[in-house]
């Protein structure tokens, strides 16, 4: 799985996240304004606050539209601009009228806190519009609309006009942030193609490794055996049953290789594969006792069942070839999403680390095969005491 979010999606995703964050920032500013003016209204019963609350609601509705609509139609954009202009004008006019009624307030300029909260909210809704429209022009439009309306109203009502430093600074920071994000993204995401390619190569390598592992296991179980048979036969005619078996082995190997390891041994369900493995071992003189929940095995996928059956066959073959005893137990245990098959013998045992590198049965035919289908193998063995091999596969 890739670890890197594609550059092609990063910019849009960041814009969407910024838009949502800005919307909540804007709403918080409006809520702050509502709370502040509400507290003033409570403290001064003569102050009529409802026009401010209505104006706040109008401004919030404009932001909500930008937050919710999926596509920016020109008519919708024009409507939102109109709503916001009306909202801020109504809001500022009411605040100015109030300020004029309180001449003792030394901070009663056009940049008063409550005006700043509303213009900041509109600025943030401009960022919210950036998920639908070009982000920087959206913010510029919001700033011009908010500050322009407030300044025009202040001039019209002969109210002291002061540049709103906090709103202007916030506007500059927002634009700067958007520019920097673009520059920074271009630089930091330069590694993304390399990492994506590496992940793809890795995925392909793992898939190929798995496919090769399955073929190798089959080669070990079939072709090497057939070569051994041929090497021990005298020159002359080859019996038909030997030819048929060699042909069947070749068909299995070629079929597995051609189909990327997905080919199954024809007609081999787990029961069939297991039975075949047990029969082969019994034919070789091994007394195999089978116990456990055999029916649970029917839930295995065909690919897993096939791998398990073939690995089982190799396990029992190892008992015949190396354990020095003529009996083995087979236990089938179904668990939470897994099936475990254990092959237990009380034979010679061995030290796993000391098994020669050329002994491929455990590595390829058992471990490689089971791991290729998402399973695991555990071996417990003590020289002179015996060996238990646990094959666990996903159900």
């Amino acid at each position, binding site marked *: 799985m890739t670890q890197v979010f594609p550059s092609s999606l990063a910019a849009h995703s960041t814009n969407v996240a910024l838009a949502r964050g800005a919307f909540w920032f804007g709403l918080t500013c409006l809520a702050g304004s509502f709370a502040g003016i509400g507290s003033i209204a409570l403290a001064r019963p003569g102050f009529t606050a409802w026009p401010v609350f209505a104006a706040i609601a109008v401004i919030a509705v404009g932001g909500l539209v930008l937050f919710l609509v999926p596509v920016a139609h020109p008519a919708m954009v024009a409507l939102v601009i109109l709503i916001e202009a009306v909202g801020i004008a109504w809001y500022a006019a009411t605040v100015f009228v109030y300020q004029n009624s309180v001449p003792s307030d030394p901070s009663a300029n056009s940049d008063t806190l409550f005006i700043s909260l509303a213009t900041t909210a509109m600025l943030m809704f401009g960022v919210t519009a950036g998920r639908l429209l070009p982000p920087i022009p959206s913010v510029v439009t919001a700033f011009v609309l908010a500050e322009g309306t407030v300044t025009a109203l202040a001039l019209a009502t002969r109210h002291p006009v002061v540049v709103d430093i906090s709103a202007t600074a916030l506007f500059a920071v927002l634009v700067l942030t958007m520019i920097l994000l673009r520059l920074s993204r271009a630089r930091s995401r330069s590694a993304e193609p390399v990492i994506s390619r590496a992940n793809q190569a890795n995925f392909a390598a793992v898939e190929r490794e798995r496919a090769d592992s399955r073929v190798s296991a089959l080669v070990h179980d079939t072709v090497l055996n057939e070569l051994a048979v041929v090497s021990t036969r005298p020159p002359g005619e080859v019996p038909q049953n030997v030819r048929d078996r060699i042909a069947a082995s070749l068909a299995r190997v070629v079929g597995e290789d051609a189909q990327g390891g997905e080919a199954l041994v024809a007609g081999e369900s787990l029961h069939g594969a297991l039975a075949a493995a047990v029969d082969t071992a019994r034919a070789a003189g091994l007394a195999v006792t089978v116990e456990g929940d055999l029916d649970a095995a029917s839930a295995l996928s065909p690919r897993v069942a096939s791998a398990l059956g073939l690995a089982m066959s190799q396990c029992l073959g190892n008992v015949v070839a190396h354990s020095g005893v003529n009996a083995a137990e087979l236990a089938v245990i179904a668990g939470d999403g897994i099936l475990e098959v254990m092959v237990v013998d009380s034979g010679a045992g061995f030290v796993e680390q000391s098994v020669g590198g*050329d002994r491929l049965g455990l590595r390829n035919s058992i471990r490689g095969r089971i791991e290729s289908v998402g399973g695991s193998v555990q071996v417990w063995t003590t020289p002179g005491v015996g060996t238990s091999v646990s094959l666990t596969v996903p159900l």
Partner: protein
Amino acid sequence: MTVTRNATRWQTPQQLDPIGGITARLIVIVSGVIAVCVAIVMTIMSSSQISNPSLAVLAIAVLALTVAYFIRASSPFYAPLRLRSHVVVCLGALLAVVIEAASQWGTNAYVRDDWGPIAMAIVVITLGTYRGDLEILACTIGSSVIIGCVAVAIAASGSTVTPVPVAVLVVTMVTPVLGSGFASAAFSRTLVRILLAWRTSVEAQIPPTGEAAMPPTGHLAFLHATVIPFLDGVVSTGTLGEQDGARARRLAQELRVLMVMDAEQTWLTGVIDRFEDPARVAGEFDSAQRGCLRALIAHVQSSDSFAPRTVRLRLGLENGQPAGVLEVDTIGEASPRSQVGPYIAVARHVFSAADAVFTPGGFALTFRV
């Protein structure tokens, strides 16, 4: 979309997209510098309201240290930014707010020109890339309560000249931090949902497997070229010649040797020429770890800042855990730190531990699986 509620709650954008943290780091740096500049400028502009200049300087120093810590913690070389760092940043900014308020104790005429809440808001807003929404909300609300108390205390001191109720002073000081925190949390939550949805869709896709279709190599090539034709010949003719027995033995031996050689190979074969893996731990790497190392190796092998022939990898066991070190010599005077930053960020995400070290003339990445 199969995004579970709990997964959305506790994952962070940086965890899901390590490179996103690097993109945002420039904003952390710039906004941090802006926050400190705002603090200095506003301190100078409202100097007439300062009753304790030492505390005013201390407040700026605490803010600067907090910003410096945040910039360091957001580095890809220390990624991901952990909860502890988040708490340190919030507490540091909050401490600056409190000390700044103390520096104007009894002389604070206008709380609106107090820089503490504004600076904290600027710092907090960049946390959205690095931490989860619930964490940010918790820090925001906790901080706001404390700042609200500070506002009430300032009002109680009787120094303010604005004829407004206490609630207005609280709103003035709390709104920037609340707004910034809510924005940051919403940013984080939205990004996490987008990234989780993307991951779900990526996992549902089957990537192209170009290499899987490549012709067989090693023992499989030998099998197809030599062994199968030989056995096919035996099947089709139905007879064995004088030399066929010996040839079968030889083929079996060669096939077994090649199988052993192939089994000894790891996924690193073909990825890097110089590697040591005496404990054979390469197989313990998961897919993401392999992908990350492949990418870094590919980068240093193709970059002008590194000597490609000097790339070497040593794997082994460290306290029983697979670990390794990737080393390469650097070329030229300029440090290629920023070049490898994205790879280090990803490495710190996919490995249980990963550290990058630049020495004069060299670069090393140590990691534990």
